[in-house]
C-alpha cells in the first residue's frame, strides 16, 4: 500500500510540474510578445577605436527595434583573422577599408555590403601641455622622453601618425613607443608614461585633459572605416534593419558627437 501512495504522490507532483512549466512558457511567450514578434540577434565585431560609439549606437538601435546586439571588440587585424577562421559574426565594423576589402576578395564577406560608416581624425595629445601651440613645439623640438602612437604596422592610426611625422620632416625619432592599438597609445599617455601621443580625436571627446592638436587631414591619408556583412548574415532581417538604422540621422549624430565625420547624403 505504501507503494501505491508513493506513486500517486509522484504523479501528482509531475502534474504540478507540468502545469508550472506550461504557465511559465505562456509567461515567457507573453514577455517576448511585448518586445516584438520578430526580435532577432546580431553579433557585431567592432574595431576597438569605435567601441564606445558602437555601444551607444547599439543601445539606441535595441530600444528602437527590439533586436539584440552582441558586441565583440578587438583590433581590426585580429578580428579579420578570426572571421577567416569562422568566427560567428554578422557585421564587421573595421578601422580601415583594407581588411574589409580583403575579406570580400577572399569570399568571407558580401561584396555589396561594403559601406564607409565613419572617418576618424588623428589628434596629438598631452595632459601636461598648456596649449595646442606648446604641444606642437614639444613635437617639433622633440622635447619629450616618450612619444606614443599605435603600432603603424597593425593600426591605421599608427600608420597615419608616421605619415604626419614624415610630412613635418621630423626625421628619425628613437623615443617612440608603440601601443598595440590606439587605445593603448591613449593609455600610455593617460598614465603619464609617455609625455605625449597620437590618439584618436574621438578618445578625447569625453574628458579633455591638457591640450590636444587635431592633426590636419592633409598631413595623412583619411582614416576611413568600412563595414561589411559576413557570410550569409545579409539574409537576417535584424542585420538589414541595423544597416538601415546606421544611415538614420539619429545614428549619424551619435557618430559625429564622438569626433568622427560621416559621408554626407547617401
Amino acid at each position, binding site marked *: 500500500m505504501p507503494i501505491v501512495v508513493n506513486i500517486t504522490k509522484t504523479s501528482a507532483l509531475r502534474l504540478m510540474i507540468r502545469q508550472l512549466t506550461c504557465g511559465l512558457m505562456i509567461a515567457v511567450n507573453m514577455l517576448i510578445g511585448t518586445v516584438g514578434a520578430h526580435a532577432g540577434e546580431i553579433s557585431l565585431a567592432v574595431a576597438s577605436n569605435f567601441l564606445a560609439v558602437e555601444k551607444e549606437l547599439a543601445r539606441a538601435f535595441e530600444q528602437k527595434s527590439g533586436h539584440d546586439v552582441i558586441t565583440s571588440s578587438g583590433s581590426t587585424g585580429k578580428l579579420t583573422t578570426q572571421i577567416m577562421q569562422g568566427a560567428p559574426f554578422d557585421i564587421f565594423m573595421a578601422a580601415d577599408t583594407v581588411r574589409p576589402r580583403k575579406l570580400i576578395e577572399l569570399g568571407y564577406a558580401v561584396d555589396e555590403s561594403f559601406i564607409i560608416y565613419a572617418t576618424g581624425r588623428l589628434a596629438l595629445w598631452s595632459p601636461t601641455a598648456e596649449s595646442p601651440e606648446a604641444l606642437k613645439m614639444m613635437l617639433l623640438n622633440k622635447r619629450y622622453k616618450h612619444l606614443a602612437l599605435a603600432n603603424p604596422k597593425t593600426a591605421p592610426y599608427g600608420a597615419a601618425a608616421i605619415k604626419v611625422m614624415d610630412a613635418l620632416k621630423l626625421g628619425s625619432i628613437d623615443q617612440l*613607443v608603440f601601443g598595440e592599438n590606439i587605445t593603448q597609445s591613449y593609455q600610455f599617455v593617460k598614465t603619464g*608614461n609617455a609625455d605625449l601621443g597620437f590618439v584618436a580625436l574621438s578618445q578625447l571627446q569625453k574628458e579633455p585633459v591638457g591640450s590636444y592638436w587635431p592633426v590636419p587631414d592633409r598631413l595623412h591619408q583619411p582614416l576611413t572605416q568600412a563595414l561589411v556583412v559576413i557570410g550569409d548574415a545579409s539574409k537576417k532581417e535584424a542585420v538589414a534593419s541595423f544597416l538601415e538604422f546606421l544611415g538614420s540621422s539619429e545614428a549619424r549624430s551619435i557618430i559625429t558627437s564622438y569626433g568622427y565625420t560621416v559621408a554626407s547624403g547617401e
Partner: protein
Amino acid sequence: MSGIEMVPVWLTLKLATVTTILLLLVATPLAWWLAQTKSRSKPIFEAMVALPLVLPPTVLGFYLLVLLGPEGPIGSLIEAVGGPRLVFTFAGLVFASVLYSLPFVVQPLQNAFESIGRAPLEVAATLGASARDRFFSIVLPLARPGFITAATLGFAHTLGEFGVVLMIGGNIPGKTQVLSVAIYDHVEVMEYGQAHILSAGLLIASFTVLLLVYMLNRRSRAKRHGYLL
C-alpha cells in the same frame, strides 16, 4: 620571402636568461624561508607568491603601468632617487618578468627544501657544521633537482611571456619587442608565414627545454634512489 628577423629572438633569450639568474638569487632565500618558517603569516606570503599563476597578465601589466609611471608611487620614488624609468625599457621588462615568473621558481625550490627534511641538517649541526656550511654542502646538493626545475620553468615561462610585456613594453624593436609580441604583430597583419616560423621555433625551443628538465630530474631521482637502496 624575407629572412627571419633574429632581433626579437635574441632579445627574448636575453630577457629569459637575465630574469632566470635574478629569480634564482631572489627566490632561493625566499623559498628557504618559506620552507623553514613556522610563522603564522606563511600562507599569506605563499598566496602572494602564487598570485601571478592565477592573475591574468593584463592585471599585472596594468598595475605595473600605473605604479611604475612617473606619477605612480613606485615610478615617482625611483625617479626621485635618480633611477631609470622602468616602463618602455629592457630593465622594466626584467622587473616585470621577475614578478611574473616568481611562483615558477619559488615553488619548486620550496618543495625541494621541504623534502630534505630536518634530519640531515640536525645531524650536520651536531657534527659542528655552521649554518652556512649546512646550506652549501647539504641543502644545495640535495635540492639540485629543484633548482633545475625552477631555473627551467622560470626560463621557459619568461620565453612565453606576452600580456605583461605588451602592456609595459611599448613594442620597441630591439629594446622591448620580444618574440611573442613579434609573432602577434605578424598575425595581425596576416603575415602567417613569418608567424609560423617564429611560432614553430618557440614551440620547439620550449618543448626541448621542458624535455631536458624532465629527463634530468628523472636521472637524478634514479640516482638518489640508487643510493638509498
